């Protein structure tokens, strides 16, 4: 008997549970749902490509859950390596794996355990990849602890949206994003349909502000152990720069140095309560992760991915909060899309120009005439790098960019389809325009 076949059939009944919900229709299905006759031919097993961002506490659970829900083509990105303190909840890792890439070890583990599942690891930052990479996925799931990373991927998925000639969103360009977050016994799950429902940027104020203490308190009148730790972090470290590097919250040597200095300071002020764990918490700005919260949130995220990919039930609309401090409480509601959201609130307006031979000054004149702008500042992004074309209100920039006014757009790196960002007092936000040369048909990627 062929070995490959043997492995494939090792679990003849592995998917019999999925058969029920994928081969039968029900009253709560998405209107698109079409029962399939053979589950192994189903979209999730053949075509569907999932990207998991983060292979930490949530990521490990997500990978395991997705694999067991039948997804076979999964990619995972994580820039971190495995640390001893991860082992209590990031269950795909063992002691022998310490120091290795989280993404790689996690992928190997899943691929071994679940024959037929193919997890591709990327030991990278999310910023290492471009649009081309992200466009290949059907759904993105995030298990992140960073707001910056969430905002970045949110912006990336929104930039992948395309619009037809009538300005209507092309639904095939939407890559749904399922985002999970946990903090101690609290967590949340949300489903984002970029361009359609509330995005990360629309609801930025849902993220709690960082806990900070007044600088003068930590410098002159510390009262709490946290004040002593912050003092070392904010003032003493940059001054003494003991390891000639920025603080790395995951480096025990760094944490230990901060711990020792903070203890000294606490003793000096008769303050008790500085301990290693607290130091780590304050430096990394984290609330300790709880394995069971991660399990519940990652599971709820996976259910949403499964529902979106199969249409076998309607997805969450669109935000669930979870808290199991007192009993178990969840609340589900629809976060609202913000019309003036900086990320998804505006679709690029088309600005028709005669040709890329016109001067920047002419373009600005056109903006002031057609949009009654007063003093527009114009920037763009060329090969991922920000470029200030002209900014009249700040004299040092104005002087350095004045020359650009006489240049034609082509020489400034702009072409048909380029986007420009225009800031002006007449509008509460920076507006985005896409240039369209009148004679040519627009070629937007």
């Amino acid at each position, binding site marked *: 008997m062929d070995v490959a076949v043997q492995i494939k059939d090792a679990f003849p009944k592995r998917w019999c549970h999925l058969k029920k919900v994928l081969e039968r229709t029900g009253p709560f299905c998405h209107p698109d749902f079409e029962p399939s006759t053979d589950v192994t031919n189903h979209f999730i097993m053949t075509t569907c*490509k999932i990207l998991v961002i983060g292979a930490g506490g949530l990521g490990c659970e997500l990978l395991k859950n997705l694999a067991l829900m039948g997804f076979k083509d999964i990619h995972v990105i994580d820039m971190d390596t495995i640390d001893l303190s991860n082992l209590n909840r990031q269950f795909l890792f063992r002691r022998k794996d310490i120091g290795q890439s989280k993404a790689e070890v996690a992928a190997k583990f899943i691929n071994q355990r679940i024959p037929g599942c193919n997890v591709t690891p990327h030991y990278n930052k999310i910023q290492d990849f471009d649009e081309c990479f992200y466009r*290949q996925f059907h759904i993105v799931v995030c298990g992140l602890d960073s707001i910056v990373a969430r905002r970045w991927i949110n912006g990336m998925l929104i930039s992948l949206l395309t619009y037809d000639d009538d300005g209507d969103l092309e639904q095939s360009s939407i890559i749904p994003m399922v985002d999970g977050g946990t903090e101690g016994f609290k967590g949340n799950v949300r489903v984002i349909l970029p361009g359609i429902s509330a995005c990360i940027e629309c609801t930025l104020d849902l*993220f709690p502000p960082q806990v900070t203490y*007044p600088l003068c308190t930590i410098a002159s009148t510390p009262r709490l152990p946290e004040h002593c730790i912050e003092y070392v972090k904010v003032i003493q470290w940059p001054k003494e720069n003991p390891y000639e590097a920025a603080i790395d919250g995951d480096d025990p040597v760094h944490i230990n140095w901060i711990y020792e200095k903070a203890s000294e300071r606490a003793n000096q002020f008769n303050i008790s309560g500085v301990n290693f764990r607290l130091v780590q918490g304050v430096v990394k700005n984290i609330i300790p992760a709880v394995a069971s919260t991660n399990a519940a949130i990652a599971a709820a995220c996976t259910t949403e991915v499964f529902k979106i990919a199969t249409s076998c039930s309607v997805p969450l609309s669109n935000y669930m909060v979870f808290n199991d401090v007192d009993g178990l409480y969840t609340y589900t509601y629809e976060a609202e899309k913000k019309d003036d959201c900086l990320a998804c609130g505006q679709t690029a307006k088309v600005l028709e120009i005669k040709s890329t031979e016109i001067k920047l000054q002419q373009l600005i004149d056109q903006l002031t005439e057609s949009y009654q702008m007063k003093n527009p500042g114009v920037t763009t992004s060329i090969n991922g790098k*920000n470029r200030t074309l002209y900014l009249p209100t*700040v004299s040092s920039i104005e002087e350095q960019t004045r020359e650009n006014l006489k240049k034609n757009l082509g020489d400034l790196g702009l072409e048909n389809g380029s986007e420009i960002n225009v800031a002006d007092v007449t509008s509460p936000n920076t507006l985005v325009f896409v240039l369209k040369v009148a004679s040519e048909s627009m070629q937007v990627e």
Partner: protein
Amino acid sequence: MIKLFSLKQQKKDGEATPKVGNQKKASAAQLRITKDINELNLPKTCNTEFPDPDDLLSFKLIICPDEGFYRGGRFVFSFKVGPNYPHEPPKVKCETPVYHPNIDLDGNVCLNILREDWKPVLTINSIVYGLQYLFLEPNPEDPLNKEAAEVLQNNRRVFEMNVLKAMRGGCVGSTFFERCLK
């Protein structure tokens, strides 16, 4: 209800090898800072310098107070705006050594809106005004430089002389200050 991947189409294989992410669109932080910078409405005592006009995320603010203790001085602040702007405030440091109760000798600045009272609705302009105010009304109740705060509290004359001494380039106590008069 929307029809997501109604074709359940095979997606194009992407580049699996890392390529530096070049998003075609400017990030939300970038759009916001562009707006902030374009709408800077500086008091006449303040000026900005952008070493690289393409990089709106790092720049300098120069304050030359025309009244108060610090009249005639020239103070340079560096601004670094992070990718989490405006969820997090920019990092601001004073690059000119200054004898001031709310600014320490390493350039740390004690201004509430730079830390605990920062809100995303605030702008770069709000910070500029906050910093300018620090030179008009140094606040001995929130000291970073305790000695300076105590002198200000106990004897405003002595404080005024110390400030002048420091700005002219000289020692206050055992600390030497470089000249920063215009």
